[in-house]
């Protein structure tokens, strides 16, 4: 099937997917047996039937369940995700506010894992079975095996508390104010506003969380790169390149690496998706105000509209990234088509 038709088909298929996700989010939010009325009204108010009725009317809780879903979807199509019961603010607004923090963290994490991972993988493959190979392989193993929350705690304990090398929790030092919002990414916004000390501070705060988040993907990428490189390095055209007198590092970088990186593309996509959706642990420990923390808080406080909204956002982000990765894969390797 020609590429562009395949892409169109995939994009069209997103629509039922989004509906499926909205349905799943709705079901999940409604399995929770807590009664938001009792949870959100003061004691006196909850005892007053008039107020209870008004509350239920306001949040549409008095409608039968399938009508609630239909109303929800209708609002969704207008871009209205509802209002958070906890904060009384539109959820769309809150998600837009918290998402950039997670994007910033996930991107930093991916960059760290990419650079470190590919480098490690190449080193490991080129100097196979030498001591450096073992060192790198052990580091990669540690990356994939160490629990994120534990790494985060140890990192804070050693690097922040004991050695004072990195700043504390949060995206910025407590006393500083965020740069004027353009993208929501502090790094970019501070550059745009020319606030260099804020930029430096934001970058410093990113170091430890990015390292911790990127550790797992780094290990994964290193391992995949290694095995991929080993495979490629044994192929005929590499031998040809060498016999033609091409210098070794050019052989590795220009010929081997490019082809070895194919499987890494998939991993990056999966990793990025995971980082975006799975940053709950890191965000909680580092007090990072992103959607992971928002998801955790809304689930914890049983804020149904917020739970639905953030689940949908995370899920849609995930499948969008998957789609992009698939397209990238098809584009990079002309031999591969559909499935």
């Amino acid at each position, binding site marked *: 099937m020609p590429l562009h038709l395949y892409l169109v088909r995939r994009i069209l*298929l997103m629509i*039922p*997917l989004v509906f*499926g*996700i909205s349905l*799943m*989010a709705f079901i*999940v*939010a409604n*399995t*929770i*047996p*807590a009664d938001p009325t009792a949870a959100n009204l003061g004691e006196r108010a909850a005892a007053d039937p008039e107020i209870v009725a008004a509350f239920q009317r306001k949040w549409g809780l008095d409608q039968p369940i399938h009508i609630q879903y239909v109303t929800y979807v209708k609002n969704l199509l207008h871009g209205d995700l509802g209002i958070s019961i906890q904060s009384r603010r539109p959820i769309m607004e809150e998600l837009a506010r918290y998402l950039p923090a997670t994007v910033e963290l996930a991107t930093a994490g991916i960059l760290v894992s990419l650079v470190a991972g590919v480098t490690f993988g190449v080193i490991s493959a080129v100097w196979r079975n030498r001591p450096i190979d073992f060192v790198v392989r052990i580091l990669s*193993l*540690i990356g*994939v*095996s*160490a*629990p*994120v*929350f*534990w790494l985060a*705690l*140890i990192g804070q*304990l050693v690097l922040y*508390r004991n050695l004072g090398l990195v700043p504390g929790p949060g995206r910025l030092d407590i006393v500083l104010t965020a740069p004027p919002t353009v993208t929501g990414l502090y790094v970019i916004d501070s550059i745009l506003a020319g606030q260099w000390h804020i930029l430096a501070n934001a970058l410093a705060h990113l170091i430890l969380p990015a390292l911790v988040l990127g550790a797992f993907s780094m290990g994964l990428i290193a391992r*995949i790169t290694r*095995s*991929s490189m080993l*495979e490629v390095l044994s192929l005929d055209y590499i031998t040809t390149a060498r016999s033609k007198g091409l210098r070794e590092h050019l052989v590795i970088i220009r010929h081997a690496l490019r082809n070895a990186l194919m*499987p890494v593309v*998939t991993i990056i996509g999966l990793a990025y*998706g995971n980082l975006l*959706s*799975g940053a*709950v*642990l890191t965000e*909680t*420990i580092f007090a990072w105000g992103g959607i*992971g923390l928002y*998801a*955790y808080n809304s*689930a*914890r406080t*049983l804020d149904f509209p917020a*739970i639905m909204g*953030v*689940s949908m956002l*995370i*899920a*849609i982000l*995930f*499948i969008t990234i*998957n789609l992009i990765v698939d397209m990238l894969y098809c584009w990079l390797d002309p031999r591969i088509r559909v*499935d």
Partner: protein
Amino acid sequence: MKILKVIRLHARRNPLMFVGLVICILWFAVSLAPSLVAPYGPLEQNIRKRLQPPSANHLFGTDQLGRDILSRVLYGGRISLPAGLLVVVSAAIVGTVMGSVAGYIGGAWDEILMRITEVFMSFPIIILAMAVTAALGPSTINAVIAMVVVWWPNYARIIRSLVLSVKANEYVQASRAIGASRTYILFRTILPNCVAPALVMATLDIGNAILIFASLSFLGLGPEPSAAEWGRMVADGIDYFDQWWLSAFPGIAIFTIILSFNLVGDGLRDVLDPRMRKALTR
């Protein structure tokens, strides 16, 4: 004597895998009978002795209620290991059934399955786990259920692509030409070829499953609060940051067990080698 020789042979050929196997077996052994090795009970409180640093009496120190951390770490495997195994086995079974049927039948069912797996895979597990926990109460089994719901799509997809690649093989075509039934082909030729890669994936996955289970219990979604479970112990230790031994040792326990599963999985993959590496990277 012969056994020792076999062991030495394996150890030399693939030292890392051997190390992994040893650690794995040790943990399994400890988890089967922790009372034989642990100096104290996992729930034994001694308030006067709370938050003691590691000492001769308490090698890993005591926690906020005076419980011996070494004993709790040793007992921790009793919850995490079976939970991880259960998740992977259940997910693998469900996933294999769905994936192989979809891959083999193809067409519209295949498309539908792919979309369904995408929906489940993309749903944030934390929220799902919290919803299940809120609905059914926090417990090990509920956390496992939540995880299986999000876990099976991975297997379904892998099995499906394996099935597709095997389906195109000549001997399958040949089987059909001689009139073998679909079920026969599915069970006798296709599935056996999928076992090996599924096994490798599962082994590598158990570590991951234990990790996610520990993470869920770290967030308070797993077993009962006083139970000795590593993730929960690490979480409890955060409130006592100065008493680093509360979080450090359970964390190391999780680390070693995941490491060992990874090493074993790596070794398995090297053994069952080249054909499936292509399939696994997609």
